[in-house]
């Protein structure tokens, strides 16, 4: 499954001109509010008709301005999860979930019981949407989109309207979705934490244009992308396996570069996790420091140095098989004489890693 997007559209005072490819997996559209992300998704869904361009899903042309092709919304077979759920208030949760199935042309769809179980909404089936919490509504909305048997799932900031707790409640379901279904997802977000946990492909947007796009792991560990991602949100992910739960409340994980100690992660030993480490939480040292409170010291090799215009610098590091980013001052980068090939230690405070930065299987 692969989606090819290329189109231009003008609103009053806003011009959108985008082109990117979304392979299977989760493709995240990331950018500031007003950068045109939702417009892109609406164009793919058919809710907006672009001035010109071409949209294609595998072999199916969804839209082509020159050939005057525009498949109507209801025939595109794309599941759309909206920011605010948009459940039908006059139908029960079960009827909402089955709504798309009435219209799905072919009978072979996602298995109802499996979707219900995966999203944990079995207890809600007889309820009316008006009595669900925000998080429950969003899970039902995701299930409803999935059960319409879509060829592509569109998600427009499905978590933006929820508080942190509800987000934390839904993220694991989205991760399961990525693992357990092979429906490709186009995911709009302006939250780096969500993108880092979910995306396999990342498309960076700004002011109606695509700045860069590529595999998420590469994009997130590329110092050149840091300005676009935001210096405070930038950071690459380490893959690690839970090794043991220690008695003092810490969890020991094994990354390819060495052991990592994190505040309690509720997962049995052997679970593979992806841990996002913010560039600004990493300290670099040329020698292995002694008498330091930070528990995590990984031996790393500098692979790239990007000196910004301001006082900061971003250093890309090879940590075993993974890439990391560290944000330090330009002064330190020069004082430590960091350059590609330099060996040093990356120091990460255990408590700097938030629960929301610990993601599921990779």
């Amino acid at each position: 499954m692969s989606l090819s997007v290329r189109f231009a559209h003008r609103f009053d005072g806003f011009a959108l001109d985008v082109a990117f490819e979304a392979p299977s997996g989760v493709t995240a559209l990331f950018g500031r509010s007003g950068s045109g992300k939702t417009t892109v998704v609406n164009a793919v869904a058919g809710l907006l008709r672009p001035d010109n361009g071409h949209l294609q899903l595998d072999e199916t042309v969804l839209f082509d301005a020159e050939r005057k092709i525009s498949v109507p919304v209801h025939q595109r077979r794309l599941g759309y999860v909206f920011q605010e759920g948009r459940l039908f208030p006059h139908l029960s949760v079960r009827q909402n979930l089955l709504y798309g199935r009435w219209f799905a042309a072919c009978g072979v769809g996602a298995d109802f019981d499996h979707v219900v179980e995966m999203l944990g909404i079995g207890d809600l089936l007889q309820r009316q949407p008006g009595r669900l919490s925000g998080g429950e509504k969003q899970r039902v909305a995701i299930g409803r989109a999935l059960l319409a048997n879509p060829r592509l799932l569109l998600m427009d900031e499905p978590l933006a309207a929820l508080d942190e707790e509800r987000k934390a409640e839904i993220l694991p379901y989205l991760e399961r979705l990525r693992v357990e279904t092979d429906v490709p997802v186009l995911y709009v977000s302006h939250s780096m934490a969500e993108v880092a946990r979910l995306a396999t492909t990342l498309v960076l947007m700004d002011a109606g244009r695509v700045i860069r796009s590529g595999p998420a792991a590469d994009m997130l560990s590329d110092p050149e992308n840091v300005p676009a991602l935001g210096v405070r949100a930038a950071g690459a992910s380490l893959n690690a396996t839970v090794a043991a739960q220690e008695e003092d409340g810490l969890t020991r994980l094994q990354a390819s570069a060495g052991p990592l100690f994190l505040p309690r992660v509720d997962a049995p030993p052997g679970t593979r996790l992806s841990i996002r480490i913010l560039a600004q939480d990493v300290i670099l040292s040329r020698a292995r420091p002694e008498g330091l409170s930070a528990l995590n010291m990984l031996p790393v090799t500098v692979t790239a140095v990007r000196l910004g215009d301001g006082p900061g610098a971003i250093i890309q590091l090879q940590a075993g098989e993974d890439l990391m980013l560290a944000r330090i001052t330009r002064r330190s980068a020069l004082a430590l004489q960091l350059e590609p090939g330099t060996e040093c230690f990356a120091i990460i405070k255990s408590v700097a890693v938030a629960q929301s930065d610990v993601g599921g299987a990779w």
Partner: protein
Amino acid sequence: MLSLKVSFWATLLSLPLGVAVAYLLARYEFWGKQALNGLVHLPLILPPVVTGYLLLLTFGRRGAVGAFLEQAFGLVFAFRWTGAALAAAVMAFPLMVRAIRLAIEAVDPKLEQAASTLGASRPWVFATVTLPLILPGVIAGAILAFAKAMGEFGATITFVSNIPGQTQTLPSAIYSFLQVPGGDAKAMQLVLIAVAIALLALVLSEWLGRAVARRIAGS
């Protein structure tokens, strides 16, 4: 009772058209929208006698539409109870359309978008999402129209006259009784009936509206 029959058919037959016109006015922008809107509201602002006379000109036996209908279907409006129903329907139409249009405008178009992304074509979206959500408004509009049809006097008497047993509706009967000496008592009976029917309609509309709203809110 002739009035009940007249009002019932007037309401029932104009309801689908009312929903269609209300949907058109609420959801679409098109050339002549203001003209349509004006035409629908005309009976509300014209003197009823004028409306009745216009109906007579159009649907009378020598009127353009009336002559055609009589030849093609043997359908005659002038001075028949069907004409009374037509007059009542035309007079009640603006009220019905207003109520339904308000209900349609209250439905979030985003829900209709969501339905279409789930594979529902436009007619299906209307049948499965819009219509159930506007049902309270449709019922309110219908009851309003029914009450208005019961009370219609001016256009009816102009269009179909006041023939006892044929075109004499409740208001024209009351009017007739008041014209003859000693008719007060009979008129009063009819007045009481009219009040009872109006109250019943009001209570019914409240009850239906609330029941449907409850079903939608899911409590």
